[in-house]
């Protein structure tokens, strides 16, 4: 277990920097985590993060990569509905890196 400090407030994370309490998340925390991942949050990043959070709220898990690309493609245009686009935004893999910034639990298993 570890803690991160954002604007004088302390948030509990696991060893890899994923938030323990999902309700702790806010946009400042997201920006902070993104910085530790060397990601400069742009509007395009936020579009993905917001979708992840909406999906999680409904299904209690992050979407499959294919579900994510399709949803982003539908919402933002087919040129963005590709895994290349998502890897461009989140080089360590849209699944894990974007989940971390979105304050969602890490997908486990053979992924």
């Amino acid at each position, binding site marked *: *277990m570890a803690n991160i400090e954002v604007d004088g407030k302390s948030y509990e994370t696991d*060893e*890899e920097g994923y938030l323990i309490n999902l309700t702790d998340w806010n946009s400042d925390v997201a920006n902070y985590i993104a910085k530790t991942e*060397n990601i400069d949050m742009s509007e395009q990043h936020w579009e993905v993060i917001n979708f992840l959070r909406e999906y999680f709220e*409904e*299904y*209690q*898990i992050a*979407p*499959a*990569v*294919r*579900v994510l690309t*399709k949803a982003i493609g539908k919402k933002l245009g087919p040129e963005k509905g590709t*895994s290349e686009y998502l890897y461009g935004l989140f080089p*360590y*893999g849209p*699944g*894990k890196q974007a989940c971390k910034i979105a304050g969602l*639990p890490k*997908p*486990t*298993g*053979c*992924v």
Partner: protein
Amino acid sequence: MSDITAPAYRVIPIIPALKPGAMEGKGPFVANEKINEAIGFPGKLVDDWHDKAIAKMGELLSKYRSFKVYMDACVHCGACTDKCHYFIGTQDPKNMPVARQDLVRSVYRRYFTLPGKLFPKLVGARDLTREVLDEWYNYFNQCSECRRCSVFCPYGIDTAEVTMAAREILDSIGYGQKYSNEIIGKVHKIGNNLGLPGPALLDTLEGLEEDVKEDTGIDVKFPIDVKGAEVLLITPSADFFAEPHIDSLIGYAKVFHATGTSWTLSTMASEAGNFGMFIGNYEQLRKIALRIREAALELGVKRIVVGECGHAWRVAYSFWNTLSGVGDGASEVDRFAQMLQKQLDHRYKQPTHICEFTWDAIERGALTFDKSKNDKHIITFHDSCNVARGSRMGDYAGGQFEIPRNIIKTVANNFVEMSPETTRERTFCCGGGGGLLTDDLLEIRVKGALPRMEALNQVKEEHGVNFMATICAICKAQFTKVLPIYGFDRRVVGGVHQLVSNAIILGDKK
């Protein structure tokens, strides 16, 4: 993590120079109390860990005759030393299979042999100290239980069993690994390693039906929890979630569609993987296997087919019979195993691998392909360790090597073999098997991939290979991550049924 780089390819693949201590460290993240207690293990390292660990070792020695033989039989001939991908990639002498085993063997000698009790120094016997325990935790999480070294051992010592025993002792005293134990908790609680709840699974499958319809114009179904279906498909949950895994799932569905097979997935048993094997714990192994029996009985299926998952196929092929009654051999007093035996249709192999299912359909002439659809690929095949060395397919020796290759050659025009030193029973692990597929072990994963990357690079240079097919979810995830570090595109790896999916011609059989 971004500073992890690929080791250089060896000019001639000789035994590398030793780098003692190269992979010393604390090992992967240790499972916390919540994770451990959820699956019945002590939450954290118990106070009397020394006595408990020795007692557990004694228990395993009496329970598993094989473990005792492996402790006694090694003559340190050295045949295994350079056969391990982790040793080749890290050059750490403690990753020589013989040396890794000796971390446990030295303790065995001290507590369970007369010379070791009397003259420990003379026979290389060691007390189980905290340092030794930490060394176990570190180095037994640098073995993927792939059993390549065992192929070369003149005594047939199964190194994987030694690793499993060490991990089981560690778990029994509350010193287990986070990645594996967290996943085992999820499979019990939610039904799969990913923690994918039923509604999310349904949503994903509906999306796939739409996608395939859009691509092909045909209504290929992805049924789930359908009572009375003929086939229950048990596949790794990564097939529902990750790339490129999901493309093989589409391939299985197309094969079932084209052969007119009634089939179903199960939310309860939405996972083929069984990490109980990785941690060497029989109770977990069995409990995870029993979910599949429960789903099969509830749905009334006649056949059980297993998707592209390496260790799952080893568990299914080698252990499901006695664990759960899928296949002959369950205890006669195990009522539910006997019930399942009566229910399953024994004209078919139980369980059946999806490659066996597809190859059988091909041989019957039930499937047609447009091979040119795979012409952009020059394909090679990576044998997954647990399929290659822990199972079989078909009804002849080596079927597990031939059947996937036969399928590839049926659905594609360009197929090239990698060096025979690195395929079939001598295949190298992808580097992420056995419970090592976690970000906190990325360094060992990258280094352990070296021998496979060398062989792949060779066929890339000589034949332009741009696609490496495999039939294991771990291999697919591991290569997706490490290929770019070795300068390849991550999409070079994919499934055998991904290729099937590309080429299959679907006639609407409605």
